[in-house]
């Protein structure tokens, strides 16, 4: 038997499916309207977490745009924690990449200006 948790309201993007008796340490998240773009990058960030025993994602059917994202943790850590940490880490990576990229473009243009003069 699987217990499903989902948000109130219509069209939520995130559902969880977990089997009874596992105490939340292994959970499958169903992410709607997502594909390899978020799936693979989030999988990488969650796998970098030493508390995670297993992390994988699959696209259930190519006609449906949703992914099953499964996390199993060591010990009794609830699986939502590595999921949340993975999302936060990915945001941190993107923020840093954005700052570094914009800074590099600015420096490159400033350098080109100097060479022109």
């Amino acid at each position, binding site marked *: 038997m699987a217990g499903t948790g989902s948000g109130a309201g219509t069209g939520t*993007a*995130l559902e969880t499916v977990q089997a009874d008796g596992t105490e939340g340490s292994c959970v499958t998240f169903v992410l709607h309207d997502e594909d390899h773009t978020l799936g693979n990058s989030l999988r990488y960030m969650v796998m970098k977490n030493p508390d995670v025993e297993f992390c994988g994602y699959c696209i259930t059917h190519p006609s449906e745009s949703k992914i099953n994202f499964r996390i199993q943790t060591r010990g009794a850590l609830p699986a939502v924690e590595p999921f949340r940490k993975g999302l936060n880490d990915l945001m941190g990576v993107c923020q840093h990449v954005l700052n*570094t990229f914009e800074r590099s473009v600015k420096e490159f243009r400033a350098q080109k200006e100097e060479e022109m003069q």
Partner: protein
Amino acid sequence: MAARRSTDEMRDRVVLGEFGVRNVHTTDFPGNYPGYDDAWDQRRFEEAFRVDVIREEEDTLEFDMVGIDAAIANAFRRILLAEVPTMAVEKVFVYNNTSIVQDEILAHRLGLIPIRADPRLFEYRNQGDQEGTEIDTLQFQLKIKCKRNPQAAKESSDPDELYFNHKVYSKHMTWVPLGNQTDLFPDADFRPVHDDILIALLRPGQEIDVLMHCVKGIGKDHAKFSPVATASYRLLPDITLLQPIEDEAAETLQKCFSPGVIEIQNVNGKKVARVANARLDTFSREVFRHEGLKNLVRLARVRNHYIFTVESTGILPPDVLVSEAIKILMGKCQRFLNELDSVPME
């Protein structure tokens, strides 16, 4: 020492063998390698990460991203292709079309024309809204009629001389402001990016009179909304000569790679080959066709060094596109973090 070196190779090089590619997948996860701490460390990432802009032209940007994993670099590439929004013609209201281009073909062609309009100034159209409002729609008109030129020479057969307006170009599309758009965008000049896109051909008596609605969309929905001509990346090549290669073999080696990769130096009177600039190589694997050379060279790619090339269609400059793509990935993460916080999870 050798064991350590081979694990380093496994961790940071993708090796191109004669018949296959080795070490393709990322394996530096915690617990895979004893003695390495592979847990995620933002500070370590920030120290090792850098972006170098190599070349910037009007619509093309070539830059290097070093120190990031394939999953994230690929996510940026996928978002650049399919999820950065643009404005494109979606609905074409045909009032009169007596040209030989069928209505639906004409509408399809109009949809593919890139429109110079910053999509960040507009909203997405609401689902089910048929007319559109001034905050989500741009209206264009194409009204053109082909006439015979009375002044043309009797025996001329050149269509440019015989007819007026026989070629319908994208420059004939004019912006028709909706509602208060003239106040919202006082200095705006909404038009197709290129003036010389040939839409249809006409002969005297034929005319085209259409009204077009442009909406905001993403490449996932229809490729006409994709803001990049293409966006791609490749990994930095890494060519290592396992033994010194001299004389004739050096000449053959130089011809096996793209020009500029291998240079021949004169050392003690002998010609010695040296890897000058591996970045230029396109890895044709020609070296594997030479029995004497194939075991002396190791072809590999640096796993975390990505050379991105982003070519914009002209709607937004390529550096803006990359910034938008990164923000969209952040937006996706934020959406799920909000979901997690709004729903009490047991």
